[in-house]
């Protein structure tokens, strides 16, 4: 209990000295949101795993990079994660980030839903389309959608996380949504157009 109440800089100090409990307390608190962000941005569980690992390795190896007077540990970790994700996206061609999301069997779980198998399949297909459409967005629009729509951050929180004004986030989100709608319309209309053409 005590370890949870402890301030993060104090925990970090202990972690750097080799206190495993202190490190795990920090890791458990921050890893999941960072992993989800990385996963939603890259679409690759492997890349997300790598990113999170690098972020925490940096924390172990260069803890002095986090300066408590400049912000909270969560914000620092998110900033590092974001940089790593952006580097990953720059490095890879767009197509390669669309690797199988559920290749480790853990990345994709349908929520329990009392629907018929047919309806479930349709729903699953729709979600897959949305996921692909998000991954198809330019990185900055994708980030706005991920943070504001999937992570449910407020505009202020998203702006802080990205280090830009609220207006920029709103504008990116607006364009991201418009692109997303257009892409999905295209995806969903294609089979209809195909079946209409066949007739």
């Amino acid at each position: 209990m005590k370890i949870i109440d402890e301030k993060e800089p104090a925990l970090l100090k202990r972690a750097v000295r080799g206190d495993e409990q202190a490190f795990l307390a920090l890791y458990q608190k921050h890893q999941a949101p960072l992993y989800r962000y990385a996963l939603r941005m890259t679409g690759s569980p492997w890349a997300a795993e790598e990113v999170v690992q690098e972020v925490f390795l940096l924390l172990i190896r260069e803890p002095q990079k986090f300066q408590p007077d400049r912000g909270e540990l969560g914000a620092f970790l998110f900033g590092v994660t974001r940089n790593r994700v952006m580097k990953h996206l720059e490095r890879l061609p767009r197509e390669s980030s669309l690797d199988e999301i559920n290749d480790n069997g853990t990345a994709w779980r349908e929520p329990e839903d009392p629907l018929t198998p047919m309806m479930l399949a349709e729903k699953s297909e729709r979600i897959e389309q949305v996921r692909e459409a998000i991954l198809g967005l330019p990185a900055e629009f994708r980030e706005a959608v991920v943070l504001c729509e999937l992570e449910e951050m407020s505009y202020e929180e998203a702006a802080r996380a990205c280090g830009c004004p609220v207006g920029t986030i709103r504008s990116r989100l607006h364009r991201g949504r418009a692109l997303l709608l257009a892409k999905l319309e295209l995806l969903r209309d294609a089979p209809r157009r195909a079946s209409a053409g066949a007739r």
Partner: protein
Amino acid sequence: MVEGSKKLMMKCEEFELLGLDMDRSDVQPEEAETAAEHAATCPRCFALLESWRELKEDLRVLREATRFESTPARVEMRLKQELRTRREARVPRRTVRLVSWALPAAAALAIAIGWAQWHKSVSAPLTTTQPQIAAIAKGATNLPAESILLAADYDTGDFTQLPGSMPTASSEEAILQARVQRGALMQFGLPVAPEQATDWVDVDFLVGEDGQPLAVRLHQDSQTEAVMQ
């Protein structure tokens, strides 16, 4: 009245910018209300809003599907391993740091103790157990006692045994170096030519454990005079 006119004034471009934020908590209620009223009167914007709500629902499902995603356990294992490796590496480093400080300190201490003991064993005969040599050195040479230097222990090469002294195999002798007049050597029973009695020579005295001189030798440059045979 003013608010009503604002509502009527909302255009489709404005709705595209603001209308999709209607359901968000960080949008002003008046703004949301104006957008809703516009959507009710504009079929195009209403269709856009419907499409967005549909997508929003899909996003919600996607969000729920990935809500409990977290880093695979193997990452935690790797990080713990890294932490342990660093902790283990830190212990020898600390030891090395301690050793690197302690070893020279111990060496310095040993040298200091050795020097002190050596100095004590050398200076003690001069002042207490070796009054004869000290007196000779002082009286014969008029040099201060400090000028009598110890050259080396155990260096007994080319020493001439003084009359009355016995050769010894002891390793406790010390060598005292002094600059004296040749005449002073006569006090040790050594023959000195009278005309050379006032010459200055550098001599080494081999001093026994009891502080008595056992042997003497002239330095190379002094030996050319061949005083002692």
